[in-house]
């Protein structure tokens, strides 16, 4: 029996209004049509909850700090350099690494949606996807950094990278002083997700 499709331009209005029920209804429908296997959904969730996350990026940064040749490779061809460490895939097909210095602080945003280097940092945090971050990061990055408790040194410029294409940016934070004796694992532990987005200093 045909239904009254009062808003055919926006089919989601036919689904339950509660978002959790809306997802459930879509999943149930697609499973009944044979289009998705719920076990595949479980596998995707497990991947981003337990296997792919910001510890990948931290390993890349720690290696860049420790090995000048790797740092040079990373800055020259990040896609190849991180692929060689096993980090490649969806939302990380074209990587560029940008290095913070005393003169320039880099910060990454996607004003149009939520582009983010998944193979290195995982699923973006809610604040990265928020309207406030998307709207403000390009116009007032220093005010946004202040929301994170970050104040840049005098004379340091901010360079905000708006991810408008399929290129994904990884910030290489400044190596903290006094870390010369640390092994790779200890150095990686110092590298935060926010540091690799550019909303934290280490």
């Amino acid at each position, binding site marked *: 029996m045909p239904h009254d499709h009062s808003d*055919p331009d*926006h*089919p*989601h209005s*036919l*689904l339950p209004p509660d978002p*959790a029920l809306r*997802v*459930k209804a*879509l*999943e149930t*429908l697609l499973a*009944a*049509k044979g*289009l*998705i*296997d719920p*076990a*595949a*959904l479980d*596998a*995707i*969730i497990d*991947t*981003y*909850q337990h296997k792919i*996350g910001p510890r990948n990026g931290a390993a890349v940064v720690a290696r860049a700090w420790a090995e000048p040749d790797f740092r040079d490779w990373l800055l020259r061809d990040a896609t190849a350099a991180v692929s060689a460490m096993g980090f*490649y*895939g*969806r*939302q990380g*097909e074209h990587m*560029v690494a940008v290095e913070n210095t005393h003169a320039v602080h880099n910060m990454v945003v996607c*004003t*149009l*949606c939520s582009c983010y280097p998944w*193979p290195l940092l*995982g699923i973006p945090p809610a604040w990265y996807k*928020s*309207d*406030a971050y*998307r*709207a403000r990061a*390009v*116009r007032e*990055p*220093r005010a*946004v950094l202040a929301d*994170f408790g970050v104040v840049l040194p005098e004379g340091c*410029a*901010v*360079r905000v*990278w*708006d*991810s*408008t*294409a399929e*290129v994904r940016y990884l910030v290489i934070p400044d190596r903290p002083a006094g870390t010369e004796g640390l092994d790779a694992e200890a150095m990686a532990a110092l590298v*935060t997700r*926010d540091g690799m987005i550019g909303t934290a200093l280490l």
Partner: protein
Amino acid sequence: MSRVHDMGGRFGDGPVIHEAEVEVFHEDWHARALALTLAAGALGQWNIDTSRHARECLSPQDYMRFSYYEKWMGGLAALLVAKGVVTLDELAGDVPTRSPLSTKALKPESVAGVLAKGGPANRPSNIAPSFAIGAKVQARKLAQNTLVNGGHTRLPRYAAGAQGRIVLYHGTHVLPDAAAHGLGDRAEPLYAVAFAAAALWAHPEHPADEVVLDLWQSYLEPAP
């Protein structure tokens, strides 16, 4: 004007609320929505530009009131209907029929491989790069799709008409303005273009600050 998603530079939003690195999904349904979107995408009925455009085509009222993953569900429902994968009646609760696409359903054992493979956006192109590193350029004055009225574009409104300089060349990439609308890849040179904050904002925070955007060659012309 572009659409409601194009919010870079907008005034009036509140503070950015930080959260700990261990938070991946706040709700189970967020995780489910993400996985459902990826699994449905694996059916191969649309590309990333089409799916972005579907979210952008939510009504401005829905776009603003929906949380992040609600937008994804709204976009997915629209795509499924637009591509004939499900019917409006099925969405409304009619008994579903098995889809001929079911042979393409993503299997659990294929997930790791599919995610690891990704989907590169670079393609060969016979369009040669017009701009060298350091060249002064001006972004298109209208942040609008020139191929399709109201269509998808990746030129944000805040950079339209602004002058900047080329800082990186990324090779030739799929043009979203075409690919989102079934007009082919139309790959062309893609650059990172740096704009001084003062070229974008009436009240820049600092004279040395810059914003860098990835922009396709057809979005750009030589600076006058």
